[in-house]
């Protein structure tokens, strides 16, 4: 053993000082050359471009409704839809629908998160289990979760449980698979580093593998949310009545029953807008922060 290699056994003996200082200066010079100021400007194009595109599309739609459509009740323009949406908002139906759906979507998603994450960890940690169940999970991810609606109605009747069950079956496989692919793509170097640093299995998992897998996991969550939201709409359209509350899917279905195209389009837009809002307000910032912290800042096209 070298004489107890404590850190204080380190340098700075008088005889070395001058040489060390030169070295320090040289290194400081090189290091400071590295410190390039990072431009953090808000890119106007990132906001203006999509907004402009949407406005352009809306104008085209309005023009088509004015000049191209013989029947306003079958092809309402954006102004008419806006009017209907205003009425729906005024009598409280739109707000109720958005509130109910959002609450279910978020709750269902959190439930899927709470179930999918430990399951994913278990599969990542036990290869035999993964070989057995992995293909099944991937299969479930492909199965459209609408397929579960009839079964859920038979089991749970027209209750909220039906809706949550369908959301769960839609989102959980994506979350599990996201976590698994995140763990799969952890560079082997990091695991070796863990071994070299003397990490136990659990320490290696918690301190190295999981943080390294975070980007893949987040991608899985994003997809899981998309599946939650879609499954929820499907369930709400099919399962109406009973003790099931009034969601956006129910609003859509009501518009169809009343043959009110403007109401249908209002509901579609509301579903779209909620989806975009969650992406922009929750997932995008999370993702950007995660990538930026790792020096993987999203490229100019995002």
């Amino acid at each position, binding site marked *: *053993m*070298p*004489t107890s*290699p*404590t*850190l*204080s*056994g*380190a*340098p700075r*003996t008088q005889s*070395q000082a001058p*040489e*060390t200082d030169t*070295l*320090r200066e*040289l*290194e*400081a010079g*090189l*290091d400071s*050359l*590295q410190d390039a100021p990072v431009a953090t400007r808000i890119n106007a194009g990132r906001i203006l471009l999509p907004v402009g595109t949407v406005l352009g599309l809306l104008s085209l739609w309005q023009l088509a409704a004015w000049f191209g459509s013989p029947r306003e009740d079958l092809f309402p323009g954006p102004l008419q839809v806006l009017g209907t949406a205003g009425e729906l908002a005024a009598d409280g139906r739109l707000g109720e629908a958005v509130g109910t759906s959002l609450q279910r979507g978020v709750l269902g998603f959190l439930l899927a998160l709470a179930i999918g994450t430990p399951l994913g960890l278990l599969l990542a940690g036990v290869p035999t289990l993964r070989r057995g169940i992995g293909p099944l999970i991937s299969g479930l991810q492909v199965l459209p979760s609408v397929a579960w609606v009839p079964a859920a109605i038979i089991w749970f009747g027209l209750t909220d449980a039906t809706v949550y069950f369908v959301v769960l079956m839609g989102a959980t496989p994506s979350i599990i698979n996201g976590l698994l692919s995140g763990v799969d793509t952890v560079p082997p*170097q*990091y695991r*070796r*580093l863990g*071994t*070299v*640093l*003397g*990490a136990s299995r659990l*320490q290696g998992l918690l*301190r*190295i593998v999981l*943080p*390294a897998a*975070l980007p893949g996991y987040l991608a899985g969550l994003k997809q899981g949310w998309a599946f939650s939201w879609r499954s929820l709409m499907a369930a709400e359209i099919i399962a109406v009545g009973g003790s099931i509350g009034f969601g956006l899917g129910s609003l859509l279905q009501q518009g169809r029953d009343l043959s009110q195209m403007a109401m249908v389009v209002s509901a579609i837009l509301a579903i779209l807008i909620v989806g975009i809002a969650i992406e922009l307000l929750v997932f995008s910032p999370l993702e950007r922060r995660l990538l930026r*912290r*790792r*020096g*993987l800042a999203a490229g100019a096209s995002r």
Partner: protein
Amino acid sequence: MSILIEKLSKDYGGAPVLSSISTSIAQGEFVAVLGASGCGKSTLLNIVAGLEPPTAGAVTVPAGGAAFMFQDAALLPWLTARANIELALQLRGVPRAQRKDQAQQLLELVHLGDAGSKRPHELSGGMRQRASLARALGQDKPVLLMDEPFAALDAITRDLLHEELERIWLAQRRTVLFVTHNVREAVRLGQRVLLLSSRPGRLAAQWDIDPLVRTDPAAQAALTQEITQALREEIRHHAH
């Protein structure tokens, strides 16, 4: 005696990668292992580190084990330079209260005292390798294994890091096994240079480097020339 390698052989199921390598490395010795790319240097180091089992033969390292420094710094990108070092301290069992101070001392040791709160992507290649060196030193192992740690750096930075490493080695006198494909680097740093042949990797030759050679550019150049010649000879064997 610090490291003892006895008739070490390794294959991955096919042709042997390492064949019957034997050597012993004294405590506090700085040994450079030199060889062409793909001759099995990393394999040798991984076996000494315990990352891979040998196919035959034995390796003895001191009870404390070995610290390892990778060619790419292998800093965890989601942690700051300081947190990377603190992680090594934590996994070694240093109590939380002391980690911060010790990490700062280590950063200052490699002249990164002010860069501790930066993330790896904000550091230059040389700074990353210094942080990585600080982390390896933080493992506080009697043996330090280094796998071409400076190979990807530019010449000026590499020269600086050679001085840095030598300074720390002189102060701490750990046993160092340093792998490189660069003859000048081997002569510059090693007290002893081992030359590995390729396919299979055998101990082809070794040189003890007289400390006086370091201060005498002519002698250093002559020795570098001699070893380069031997390395080329090894490589030429594979021409047909």
